């Protein structure tokens, strides 16, 4: 028996299709938890309570992508389990959309980024589900740059705002935090998928593969990309544009962060802008996808099993062009809409549902947490105490009761003792002379 991550093709092909489906599904459930996919995503936004650099490194750039890494590593298994692949694609896509809708109405700067992370992870799973393993890993990489950038940028803003995280109480930070502003803007453009920023290349690769598998995946995924552009520029606009809405004290102390904080922003911004060029699609230049060549050995096994269906160049141009145009329109719309933002109005209807994250936390609490605790206290207070320990103590009491009853035999009356002696003697004789005559005699009597 050996635990190796390079699933040998020879060993894998010995498994039955059902086994592979079960194995891949179970591995995927693990990935769901680690990479915050529906229904196991609620922990990630809550985990953002940690310090911002931790969020940037662990909860955005690296650790949460371990699930994607695992599935990409196991690509041979997934390629052989088309049913699981479809599941992965659907879960990924649903998460991408679902988390994006929640991000639309969050006012905590880190919460927006957290749900954005969940959503982007969804895209990566979509990529894995449609067999675009390179695309998924590519998006892991570009996402790491721009999401780490955005989180650290958020940290810089929070630092400047004296631990204020509510974007409705910010605004107009553009001039006070020029470096943070510029790098944050670059990050927003990258995540929105505007060419030629890095996010464009990786997201495009996933979405094109999705189109090739099933155009519906593409359209839904594209819808999510529009939501992404919208909530990111809502965030940008509320934070950096318009008028300052914080306290006078905060305004007085507004300052750009020290170089130790801005330098990483600049480095990350550089990569957020240019990192996409290691994955130039076939469409622009043949054989220019450096990352694909780099990763080819890892995905060679599954590539041999599938025949990639390529899109017509014209289709790809049309999709890309349309998408980019719409995204730019959304960006302009979001900027203009939230530039003039003044005061928060209470949300109603669907907006309120979104603000409350579709009430999923409450749902889990009602359906899982509370019943579990209820059941546990029933066990603790009733079953354990009354039934099981009750039975044990009951046996003890029964013995005690029996003893008390037997004790009554020792009444101290000589008469009853003599009676008992006689009875015992008779019994003794019966047993001692246990021969047929006596037994027959007894049988005759009764």
């Amino acid at each position, binding site marked *: 028996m050996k635990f190796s991550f390079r699933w040998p093709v020879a060993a894998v092909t010995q498994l039955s299709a059902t086994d592979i489906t079960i194995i891949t599904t179970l591995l995927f459930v693990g990935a769901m938890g680690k990479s915050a996919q529906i229904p196991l995503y609620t922990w990630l936004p809550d985990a953002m309570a940690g310090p911002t650099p931790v969020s940037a490194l662990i909860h955005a750039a690296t650790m949460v992508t371990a699930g994607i890494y695992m599935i990409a590593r196991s690509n041979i298994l997934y390629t052989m389990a088309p049913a699981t692949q479809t599941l992965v694609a659907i879960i990924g896509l649903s998460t991408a959309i679902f988390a994006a809708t929640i991000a639309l109405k969050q006012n905590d700067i880190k919460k927006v980024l957290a749900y954005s992370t969940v959503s982007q992870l969804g895209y990566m799973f979509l990529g894995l589900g449609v067999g675009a393993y390179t695309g998924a890993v590519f998006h892991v990489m570009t996402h790491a740059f721009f999401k780490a950038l955005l989180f650290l940028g958020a940290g810089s803003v929070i630092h400047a705002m004296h631990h204020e995280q509510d974007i409705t109480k910010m605004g107009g930070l553009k001039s006070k935090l020029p470096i943070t502003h510029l790098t944050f803007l670059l990050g927003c453009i990258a995540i929105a998928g505007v060419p030629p920023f890095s996010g464009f290349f990786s997201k495009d690769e996933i979405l094109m593969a999705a189109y090739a598998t099933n155009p519906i995946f593409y359209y839904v995924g594209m819808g999510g990309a529009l939501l992404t552009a919208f909530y990111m520029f809502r965030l940008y606009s509320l934070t950096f544009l318009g008028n300052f809405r914080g306290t006078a004290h905060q305004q007085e102390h507004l300052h750009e962060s020290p170089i130790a904080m801005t330098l990483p922003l600049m480095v990350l911004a550089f990569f957020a802008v240019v990192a996409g060029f290691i994955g130039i699609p076939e469409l622009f230049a043949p054989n220019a996808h450096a990352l694909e060549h780099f990763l080819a050995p890892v995905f060679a096994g599954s590539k041999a099993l599938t025949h990639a269906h390529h899109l017509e160049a014209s289709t790809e141009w049309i999709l890309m062009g349309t998408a980019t145009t719409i995204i730019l329109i959304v960006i302009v719309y979001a900027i203009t809409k939230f530039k003039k933002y003044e005061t928060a109005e209470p949300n109603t209807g669907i907006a309120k549902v979104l603000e409350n994250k579709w009430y999923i936390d409450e749902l889990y609490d009602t359906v899982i947490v509370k019943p*579990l*605790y209820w*059941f*546990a*206290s029933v*066990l*603790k207070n009733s*079953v*354990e105490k009354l039934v*099981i*320990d009750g*039975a*044990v*103590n009951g046996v*003890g009491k029964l013995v005690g009761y029996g003893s008390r009853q037997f004790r009554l035999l020792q009444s101290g009356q000589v008469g009853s003792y003599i009676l008992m002696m006689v009875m015992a003697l008779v019994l003794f004789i019966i047993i001692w002379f246990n021969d047929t005559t006596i037994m027959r005699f007894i049988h005759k009597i009764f």
Partner: protein
Amino acid sequence: MIPVLLLFIPLVAGILGFFIKDQKAASNWAIVASVITLLTAVIGIYAMPASMHQFEATWLPSIGASFSVALDGMSKMLVLLTAISMPLILIATRNNNYSNPGAFYALMSLAQVGLMGVFVSMDALLFYFFWELALIPVYFLSSIWGGEKRIAVTFKFFIYTFIGSLLMLVGILFVYLHTKDHSFAWSSFTNTDLLSGQETLPFFLFFIAFAIKMPIFPLHTWQPDAYEQAPTATTMVLSGVMVKMGLFAAIRWVLPLFPIATKTFAMPIVILSVIGMIYASLIAIKQDDIKRLIAYSSIAHIGLMAAAIFAGGTLGLQGVQVQMFNHGINVIGLWILANAIESTLGTRKLSELGGLATKAPTMAILFVVLAFANIALPLTNAFIGEFLLFNGLFQYNIWIAAAAGVSIILGAIYTLQMVQKVLFGEVSAVTANATEINSYSKWVLIVIVIAVIALGVYPQPLIDLTKDSVNALLVIK
């Protein structure tokens, strides 16, 4: 000769210990004796030839009982666990004061004699003798130095386990009458003329005794009470070492004696064990008392080992060996923490604690590592053990393994809840004046934590030590 020394040293130390009146002197005496025992065990096991590992003397030749003791892989491991645990326990609780300290420490040493005897006996009557001998000092320790409800609780504990012991005695006689050479020797017991149908009765007579000791659900209710009421040092002996008697005995005196009955009844026993795991874990979630929480957590962990014993298979049985040791030192570590918290803050209630991480950072680090070991996180020793155990269970039945897996999740819930309530959150009125734990407890915990991580990274020594016992079992099956 080595096993005899391991019995003899604590026996002499115990008997002489009764005459010491001073607290510190009694404690020192017991610690020195336990360290000498430990050195004897380590040198004896690792540096002495195999011929030194057994000893036989005539005892009651007329009935075929002999004083036969030996060390094989499993008993070496448990002897080491016993020998290591004693000094750790005694040093960590050195600041606890007892009325009549001489008797307290003497009884602790005598309990060690009983434990060592159980693990090295290769004669059924001798085994029974030590099995009872281990119980008696614990009875006195708990009923004299225990908590408020000690009398009732200790009485229940004693009667409960005593009933089990008597059933086992009947079982021993039953098997004895079926041995070919009318002998109590283990080798005769494993080679009887019992027909397959006749195995059932003695199987259960033995099994119930061990199931109470482990304990297996639903025979567990004595345990949380006993752990809660016994003085902490005794609780450590009870849960760190003494519950291993049940697991050990099932492997030594049930599996090879009644292979057919074991196979026949394995499924219900495994299922009961797994139910017990989940049940105990759920109850642990709702515990407010640290001691009871650890007690139920321990029941859950023991349940997994019990399940793996009866599920059989190389990996599972190897896992039991590894995990018996790991569980022993880990749970002692948790009790040391519970003891430290209770003795400095005067409460064991989670609801009254909080914020200790800022007040006692060293303790917090040690606490967290042990908590991780309790959840069996990778890089802790318990991960290796539980991984092997789950492997064994998985090969036996996938669905049972999956159900058992639920208790891992529940384990994370109650353990992290405990960590959260003790170490984090608001500083409460009780914890406002908290300080670091005393240096005795601290250093013992550091030793345990190092062992937790070392055996988590490299568990091979434990596996090598016990391999022969596992292989011997597989031959019998």
